[in-house]
């Protein structure tokens, strides 16, 4: 009995310590190492590896999500005789919710896990300690460019997801189901507000970008330097960031809509 209480306490202390370490890591690595630091070239390389390489999955996923939204929406709305609201429905769903959330979830699976494994392996093969020995700060040299690359990439990916999805919806609604394309586009343009819908979606995506990359680099940096530890950290990255995205999504939506 006492053992369970002790275990509970241990878990509690450990998770609080871990949050503290994650906070320290973020604080120390979010700033650049001063002008002329080697990070900038690396930033471009990292945007390439986390952002550009995630493009294919984001675009394919976005297209299919948009298509299925249009198909489902058409079959629901036709019962109420208001299929002309289909464009509005597809675009608002994508811009406000699915674009940021799904792009961030896919990013966590595609790029977050890779980041964790990469940093974890650097730690296991003692590359990070070697850098320290050479007087190079591994936080600034390794973590900073990766953190920023993720924070820059996720909003762009979310935006592309929504864009492709809206055009995918138009493809199904207009070309396959024969909806009048003026109804699809003009009702959308009348209802969607740039600041309320597009910008709020971008804010959401930016928050998710920070959180997902932060979790990924922290899990890698904090992983036990064994092959088992890296595997565990990679799983943890995907699990924790997915839950964090979904939880934060509700909080952000509640704050933005102001209803709760």
């Amino acid at each position, binding site marked *: 009995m006492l053992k369970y209480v002790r275990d509970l306490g241990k878990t509690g202390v450990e998770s609080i310590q871990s949050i503290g370490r994650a906070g320290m890591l973020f604080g120390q690595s979010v700033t650049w190492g001063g002008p002329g630091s080697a990070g900038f*070239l690396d930033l*471009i*390389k990292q*945007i*390439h590896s986390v*952002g*550009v390489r995630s*493009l294919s999955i984001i675009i394919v996923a976005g297209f299919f999500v948009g298509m299925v939204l249009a198909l489902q929406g058409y079959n629901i709305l036709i019962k*109420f*005789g*208001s299929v*002309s609201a289909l464009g509005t429905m597809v*675009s608002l769903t994508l*811009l406000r919710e699915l674009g940021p959330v799904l792009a961030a979830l896919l990013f966590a699976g595609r790029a977050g896990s890779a980041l964790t494994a990469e940093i974890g392996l650097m730690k296991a093969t003692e590359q990070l300690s070697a850098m320290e020995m050479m007087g190079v700060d591994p936080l600034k040299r390794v973590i900073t460019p990766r953190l920023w690359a993720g924070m820059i*990439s996720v*909003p*762009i990916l979310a*935006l*592309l997801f*929504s*864009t492709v999805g*809206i055009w995918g919806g138009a493809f199904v609604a207009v070309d396959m189901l024969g909806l009048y394309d003026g109804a699809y*586009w003009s*009702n*959308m*343009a*009348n209802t*969607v*507000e*740039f600041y309320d*819908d*597009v910008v709020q979606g971008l804010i959401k995506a930016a928050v998710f970008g920070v959180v997902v990359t932060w979790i990924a680099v922290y899990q890698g940096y904090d992983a036990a330097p064994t092959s088992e530890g890296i595997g565990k950290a990679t799983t943890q990255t995907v699990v924790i960031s997915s839950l964090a995205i979904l939880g934060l999504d509700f909080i952000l939506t509640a704050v933005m809509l102001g209803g709760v």
Partner: protein
Amino acid sequence: MRMRNIELMVGGFMVMGIIALVLMALRVSGLSMDAAGETYTIKARFENLGGLTDRAKVSLAGVTIGRVTNISLDEEWYAAVVEMEIDKSMSTLPIDTSASILTAGLLGEKYIGLSVGAEIDYMTDGDWVQDTQSAIVLEELISRFLFSQAEGE
């Protein structure tokens, strides 16, 4: 060479993001880049808007010629004041034009329908539409119908 390719691809990625943002702004959310001066504003008082919102269409003979830009409450008249932007190309609205709030379909969005009058003077910026007709509120219609039924018996 390899680094240059990477830079090119990252640049392309950024450009795609910017293009997507511009598409979102112009095509999806219908932000117009029209310079000021291509439209003129007219105003109208309505007793009841019945769900008319900002950016609703203003149409003449079914063709959209403008948008609602601002809705406020006139505290003296206890009436709603609707400001609408009309395309400069449609600058020949007679001053006795009337405005009514209509619904697209049974459950569709509200819009303002203009019908032209017969005067020879035209409306200019800031003019008021004198003759307006409020939105039809379904509940009022139904209750009026029910009362008339009850009286008839």
